[in-house]
């Protein structure tokens, strides 16, 4: 290559690096039951729990992921609808690519799908309605799904089903969650099923499967069960 072309290539390389210098940021989601990792279909408090609590399914949508610095949004993840599914393991990852210079002190995300996306018709990928997170009988996404059994449930097979969704006022169940996060290569977020379930009397509240005020209340409680751990 001749010198001018070499210089041109070097310039291009420098410009492209300056324009799009990115670094990876991994959001690690840890699904827990108290201090333990969440395992499905096994008694969660053996020996101490006469309720014989098991979880058979936990799935939820995370969307609208943003990074904040001193309460200002400094990064928004584009096209980000992430479906967490405990049947794939209790540690899941949301890999992001952010500008190298990005500094943040908090992460913010929604638990669920926003109303505009809810009315946008059929979508694909993580939003495909065949993934079991879409109500067929009344259009709309299920933001958060938790299913399991507990002896105290007076239902068939002692089952409880929490399918939390709804996007129209007053049954808008989407929740915005903000957690502390430091600038580094990873953010560690916990969802603690025990924190969520212990606020519920399963003998009374065990089937919530449509948009309602109860669903909104439970969604608020689910949001509060998310925490971040600093490294």
């Amino acid at each position, binding site marked *: 290559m001749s010198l001018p072309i070499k210089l041109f290539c070097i310039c291009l390389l420098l410009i492209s690096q300056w324009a799009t210098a990115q670094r990876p940021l991994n959001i690690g989601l840890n699904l827990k039951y108290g201090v333990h990792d969440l395992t499905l279909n096994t008694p969660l408090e053996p020996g101490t729990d006469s309720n014989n609590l098991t979880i058979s399914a936990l799935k939820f949508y995370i969307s609208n992921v943003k990074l904040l610095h001193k309460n200002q949004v400094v990064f928004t993840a584009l096209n980000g609808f992430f479906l967490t599914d405990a049947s794939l393991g209790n540690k899941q990852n949301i890999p992001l690519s952010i500008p190298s210079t990005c500094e943040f002190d908090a992460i913010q995300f929604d638990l669920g799908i926003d109303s505009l996306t809810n*009315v*946008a*018709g*059929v*979508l*694909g990928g993580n939003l*495909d*309605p*065949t993934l*079991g997170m*879409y109500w*067929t*009988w*009344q*259009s*709309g996404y299920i933001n958060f799904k938790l299913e399991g059994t507990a002896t105290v449930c007076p239902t068939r097979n002692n089952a409880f089903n929490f399918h939390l969704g709804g996007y*129209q006022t007053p*049954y808008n169940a989407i929740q915005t969650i903000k957690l502390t996060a430091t600038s580094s290569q990873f953010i560690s977020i916990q969802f603690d099923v025990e924190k969520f379930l212990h606020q519920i009397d399963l003998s009374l509240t065990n089937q919530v499967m449509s948009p*309602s005020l109860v669903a909104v209340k439970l969604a608020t409680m689910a949001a509060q069960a998310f925490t971040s751990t600093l490294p």
Partner: protein
Amino acid sequence: MKLKIYILAIGVVLISAFQTSLGLIEIPTYFPKPVYDFSKNPLSSQKIQLGRALFYDPILSRNQTISCASCHSQFNAFAHSDHALSHGIDDKVGTRNAPALMNLAWKNNFMWDGAIHHLDVQALAPISNPLEMDENINQVIFKLQTSKIYPALFYSAFGDTAITGERMLKAMSQFMLTLVSSQSKYDSVMRHEATFNAQELKGYTVFKNNCAVCHTEPLFTNETFKNNGLTVDTTLNDYGRVMVTHNPTDSFKFKVPTLRNIAFTYPYMHDGRYQSLSQVITHYTSLNTTQKNLAKELQKPLVLTSNQKVDLMAFLLTLTDKHFMFNQNYFYPKEIFSGTTKDK
């Protein structure tokens, strides 16, 4: 010769003036703008054919016996005639009368209670309803993936053989969007190609004075939910729209259906309680106008002479669109299914 050219030119001008086309569906210029967002699902003839195959294919049901066409038959303007409540798999009787399918691009929501808010997701409801098709959408996808004909149809429509819920539903929407009814005698009159006879004209006046406030031209529905004074059937206890919105003022409100092709979509109302149009008209002329929550449009008592009733029915018959009901493009696609069924 000059006259023929002159007439031909006028004909072309008239046709293009009164029809705009999205390429694959004809939309009269006197129709309002469609609300369906075609940019998210642009029409193609291959996708329409795929959707048409899916519409007529009982593979969507648990035991391969029920297709969309089982309750939505073309010769009834895609309604389910002869049954007050539609029946599905294993002859299970459902809770409502299947509505006619036409002019769907102009609808903001679907079903008698508007529970479905987008055409693309409507098919999920009958597929998963245990009284209708009793199937799981994932199982449907699996059956399509392992079928002899669908991989090729998906390839032709989408450029690769990936079969997903999104693609299946969008293809079905495309076929359903082509079901446009706009060639009844009424439409010919609107296009100045025909005229009402004296009786139809009188009926049209009765219609405009009493019915058009909810059954608004040219779609013959204003797409709202109304309580039209039907007494609740205590064997069904169907409260309509309130079951979706939980708003008490929506109690006993049901979607205003279109009156197009009404002569062919009996029986009438969400539970098919009226077998004839004459019974429907009598319902409206004998309403208890003081009942709670009755639509305000119906609170003034409706009085019609028997001549006016007959005239009104004559007008309603002008909404029959034979072109729609005999359109070959909507038929069972035997060329796609030939060789896959037990018959030749």
